[in-house]
């Protein structure tokens, strides 16, 4: 597998062979650790709620459901027994300040006024029963196990759960009732959460609008400005370029408050404008820098030939250079996509109503509502991450190229 190593590892052959193998194993072990969080996210997103909180953790979302329940009800306190019966036939044993609810089906093992100590058996439940399956309107099912018409235990199962028992079957303790399949319905539940006003359709649309117009703004204006920096000589050009580079060091928080006030005065709060409009004014120092580095590699002969043919600078820019810098634009577009998709602080500051939320903001709100439903939270996270992961796989070479062309080699 390890054919040949380069760089500083290349030395005496045998030694290199062994160390290369060790390094190879280390590299894969590390890669495994790096990919586990994402795998864990996906498997969790497909689990039924009762498969989530298990120790040791369960890797595969498939599982089986067995008929289990406590067959014995034990005394939790010492004391004298008092027995009361409710209207629906439920018995209750009061014992030293504690009330045990005893289902009608249970067989009492104690008598009124009997003295028991903690741990004594108060009642037993039958370990055998008949199955009856009821299908509800939302396709979820209830498997009830009954004994002589009285309910022992009820299992709510979702649409991704397949019952392996039939209506009328007799089952005993420990029998398998159902196969719990990967819960694809978690995605439907996460997409349109009941506890929130909006669905992810809305968040997705908002994010797409902001991201796409934002990318257009960044591409147009950063290439436009980069052309100015790369091809024209004018007073203070180099100083302005340096100034632009140094703005990368300014933390966004310094400009945040006056900018917020500016947009507030314009009545742009709770609109997409504060997230989109600034991209048309330069598109960010890093992007201008990237495009300028790329434009510098395009020979000026092309411009001059076009000039002789009577093109003005706008035409040269649009007809000659823009098609040539398309690969660099793809890089900028992909980085812009990732940035906008993941951006949290700006939407948090500028968007108030949930109908304007982006995916990042919607996902955060989702978390506050479904704090412990990790199945749904992981499904929602997968929904948000999937497009970015796809963009990454299809546009991989642009990520790498982007780094190479920006001249970060020092």
């Amino acid at each position, binding site marked *: 597998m390890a054919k040949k190593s380069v760089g*500083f590892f290349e030395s005496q052959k045998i030694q290199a062979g062994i160390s290369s193998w060790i390094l190879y194993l280390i590299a894969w072990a590390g890669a495994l650790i790096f990919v586990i969080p*994402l795998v864990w996210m996906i498997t969790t997103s497909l689990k039924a709620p009762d498969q989530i909180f298990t120790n040791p953790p369960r890797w595969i979302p498939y599982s089986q459901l067995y008929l289990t329940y406590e067959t014995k009800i034990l005394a939790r306190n010492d004391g004298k027994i008092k027995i009361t019966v409710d209207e629906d036939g439920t018995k209750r044993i009061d014992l030293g300040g504690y009330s045990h609810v005893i289902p009608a089906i249970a067989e009492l093992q104690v008598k009124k006024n009997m003295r028991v100590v903690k741990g004594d058996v108060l009642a037993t439940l039958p370990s055998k029963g008949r199955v009856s399956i009821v299908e509800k309107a939302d396709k979820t099912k209830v498997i009830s196990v009954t004994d002589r018409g009285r309910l022992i235990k009820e299992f709510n199962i979702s649409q991704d759960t397949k019952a392996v028992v039939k209506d009328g079957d007799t089952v005993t303790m420990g029998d398998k009732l159902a196969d719990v399949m990967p819960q694809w319905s978690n995605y439907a539940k996460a997409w349109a959460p009941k506890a929130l006003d909006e669905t992810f359709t809305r968040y997705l649309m908002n994010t797409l609008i902001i991201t796409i117009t934002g990318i257009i703004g960044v591409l147009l*204006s950063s290439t436009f400005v980069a052309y*100015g920096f790369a091809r024209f000589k004018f007073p203070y050009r180099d100083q302005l370029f340096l100034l632009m580079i140094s703005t990368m*060091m300014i933390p966004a928080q310094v400009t945040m408050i006056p900018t917020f006030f500016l947009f507030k005065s314009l009545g742009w709060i709770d609109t997409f404008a504060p997230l989109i409009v600034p991209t048309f004014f330069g598109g960010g120092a890093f992007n201008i820098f990237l495009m300028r580095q790329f434009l510098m590699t395009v020979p000026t002969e092309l411009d001059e030939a076009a000039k002789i043919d009577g093109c003005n600078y706008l035409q040269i820019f649009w007809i000659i250079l823009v098609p040539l810098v398309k690969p660099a634009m793809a890089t900028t577009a992909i980085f812009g996509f990732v940035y906008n998709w*993941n951006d*949290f602080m700006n939407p948090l500051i500028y968007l108030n109503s949930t109908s304007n939320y982006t995916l990042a903001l919607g996902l955060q709100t989702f978390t506050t509502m479904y704090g412990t439903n990790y199945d749904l939270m992981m499904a929602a996270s997968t929904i948000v991450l999937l497009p970015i992961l796809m963009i*990454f*796989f299809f546009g991989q070479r642009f990520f790498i190229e982007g780094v190479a062309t920006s001249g970060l080699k*020092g």
Partner: protein
Amino acid sequence: MEKAIKRSKFKMSTQDAIWGYVFLSPWILGMIFFTAGPIIASLILSFCDWDLITLPKLVGFGNFMKMFTDARFLNSMFNTFYYTVFSVPLGIIGSVMVALLMNQKWRTVRLLRTIYYLPSVTAGVASAIIWMWLLNPDFGLINYGLSLLGIKGPMWMADEVWSKPAIIIMSLWGVGGNMIIYLAGLQGIPRQLYEAADIDGAGMFDKFRYVTLPMLTPVIFFNLIMSIVASFQVFTQVYVMTGGQGGPADSTLVMVLYIYQQAFKFHNMGYASAIAWVLFIIILVFTLLQFKMSGGWVHYEGELKK
């Protein structure tokens, strides 16, 4: 005649200059309205009391004096430094090591690079949520992994001692982003240097110490500055994992979160601006300090060839 040529030349270059400014104009306008203007405004605001509704009221150095006695501010500064001091060096060591591994000529190296790079494109709310789950004290994978080693894992985000290490560990998941930059740097090191080292009989670690590392220092320097700037601005992960609180007991209240709270929760716009300026100055001092010290350890190719 000569004069005419001169004039037309002059005319040409002026025209060129005008065109240059035309092409720069979007950035210049953006610079004025979204960068320079707001910076000046925020500097003025940092000397004012302002609730966004009534007119700003000048308070002199009041906001800055307040910081010295504001326990939450001092704590947020401590937390930010804590995070930076650990996450930046660990992140650099981690990404350089991964880059060295990814610079091998293995058949699967492309796949490996993709895997290591992947987490850095998922940065944001979703990855913070994944980590909340991984760091769950009772059912999270991290504590399960620790239990396999016989260690009882801490409460992580529920424990004020372990909440900061939790966020630092999480940040290390993203080292793939810088790894790519180091990889580009590694691939730019001329092979002759290694060949020369071979002739001198240098071993594996000698080559790393005397060739790879010095040749990589310009990239490390660039990354060090960018990482410090970024780590001083950590926000999203903390906000998501603590519901915007910076808990438990303010143990993850970082400076940017405190600025956000002061500005948009308590509407103390002047005080928030002042803190933002302190943050800016800290970043500036650190950056300048690094440039000052860089002469001692950053090697540029030209120097090395001497």
